[in-house]
């Protein structure tokens, strides 16, 4: 069964007499129990889509169904069934940790005790601060409290808007472990993130840019579709190599990628002659290697294709 169904959703905003299209005709489905990632940068439309699905905002046109209910007609039902953790911390700063949690439990006619099992793993990490005001918590602690509050009524669909933005690599990994545990409890999770490396932690992902879906598939499905031969290039001076590669006529794309550059060519036949030319330009210890594309390679390639179109 589908947990979320989106058909031709469109949303525009008017800012100072100019119209900005936040979502242009978006359609996709999320299956029940799935951990679904919405991956894209700031301004791609992730938050707008989440706000429409959680009934906080109306789309200009299109249909959206969450847990079997229509976001316009049945908004009250949806609000009972979804959990939503916005990107910006939105709990009551002047209530304590415990007060915030029991407030949200009461709103949904439940108690902390009733659904404690669901939040236990997360809440134990902040329980020692339960008398502390939420405003005085650190970033990581706030995030755990917000997640606990979003879960306390045992939602069937959970929306997490950029829970890992600005969070260090260790805490990010811990947060994803928490999500995988939640998934075991049969909760459908939609999570948005600007970090491409988090795509591989989802069952399926939608890559989103400028209000458009670039692709939807399993992480493996997306990388399988990469249609160029991808090469990694290294040399002693990586900046020189980058500038030299960028002026070679055969080069289709060239991006720095950690310790190497990822390069695609318009034609692959003449790698030897490019190598010779780069050597002549003074690139030492030059090395090309054929590699498989990752999500970020695919994302950038799809972005380039959009530009051309």
């Amino acid at each position, binding site marked *: 069964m589908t947990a979320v169904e989106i058909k031709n959703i469109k949303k525009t905003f008017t*800012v*100072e007499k*100019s119209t900005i299209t936040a979502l242009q005709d978006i359609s996709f489905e999320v299956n029940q129990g799935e951990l679904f990632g919405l991956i*894209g*940068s*700031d*301004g*791609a439309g992730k938050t707008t889509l989440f706000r429409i699905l959680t009934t906080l905002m109306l789309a200009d046109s299109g249909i959206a169904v969450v847990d079997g209910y229509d976001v316009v007609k049945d908004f009250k039902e949806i609000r009972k069934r979804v959990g939503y953790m916005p990107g910006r911390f939105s709990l009551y700063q002047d209530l304590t940790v415990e007060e915030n949690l029991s407030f949200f439990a009461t709103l949904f006619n439940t108690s902390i005790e009733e659904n404690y099992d669901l939040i236990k793993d997360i809440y134990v990490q902040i329980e020692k*601060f339960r008398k502390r005001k939420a405003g005085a*918590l*650190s*970033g*990581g*602690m706030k995030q755990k409290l917000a997640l606990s509050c979003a879960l306390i009524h045992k939602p069937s669909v959970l929306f997490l808007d950029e829970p890992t*933005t*600005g*969070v*260090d*690599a*260790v*805490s*990010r*990994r811990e947060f994803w472990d928490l999500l995988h545990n939640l998934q075991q409890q049969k909760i459908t999770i939609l999570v948005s993130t*600007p*970090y*491409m490396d988090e795509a591989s932690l989802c069952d399926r992902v939608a890559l989103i*840019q400028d209000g458009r879906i670039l692709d939807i598939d399993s992480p493996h499905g997306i990388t399988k579709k990469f249609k160029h031969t991808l090469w990694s290039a290294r040399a002693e001076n*990586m*900046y020189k190599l*980058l500038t030299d590669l960028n002026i070679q006529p055969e080069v289709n794309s060239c*991006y*720095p*990628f*950690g*310790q190497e550059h990822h390069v695609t060519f318009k034609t692959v036949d003449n790698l030897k002659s490019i190598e010779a030319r780069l050597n002549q330009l003074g690139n030492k210890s030059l090395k090309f290697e054929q590699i498989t594309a990752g999500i*970020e390679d695919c*994302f*950038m390639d799809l*972005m*380039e294709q959009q530009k051309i179109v």
Partner: protein
Amino acid sequence: MKAISVQNLTKRFGSFTAVDKITFDVAQGEIFGFLGANGAGKTTAMRMLCGLSMPTSGEATVAGFDLYKNAEKIKQSIGYMSQKFSLYEDLTIRENIRFYGGIYGLSNSEIKVKTERLVNSLNLEDKLNSLVKSLPLGWKQKLSFSVAMIHDPKIVFLDEPTGGVDPITRREFWTMIFEAANLGTTVFVTTHYMDEAEYCNRVSIMVDGQIDALGAPLELKNRYSAADMGEVFLKLARRAKRGDD
């Protein structure tokens, strides 16, 4: 000459030691990555190096100036950009450039020349009189970096400069960093993207207020038998005793 030289720099808030005797040098023209988990003490250390916060103890010179005696001189010799605060959204691009140029002590004629050059290189000619808030995030970040560099500072401090931008813009931004370093500017940068740590000449990793590792990415990967900097970071940061509370 060293661009930054730090010895036993310490900052305590009451009984809490946020930065605990850190010692390191940064060479002129180097891209220096300053990594650490949330709460490790990066921001406090960076604020001290920018002359915004007085150390509790320890020594430091930045751009040749002593942190205790010449904090104002330091502020004039550095550029600073962060993702959270950079440009004034309700000023136009021209006004922002003029404002920062003035703050950094450039003359009107210098500001005029710089404005032209900056706008040309970023292809912002048509947007000069638009409000900054109307710009896409990626453009804002690039403009913000250029503004931080408007007075040709010896050192530029970048605090998570690429957060939230799309992957192509993120790389265009780093190309600007490479260019600046190539022309001799020292770049001091923090990031949560571990692939970006690989772009640095050297990287330091802070854990619980101390610098636990410092070296070129390749050196650190060898030392910690890690495939990439992400793995180095995880191995070190997992040792942290203090959370970010």
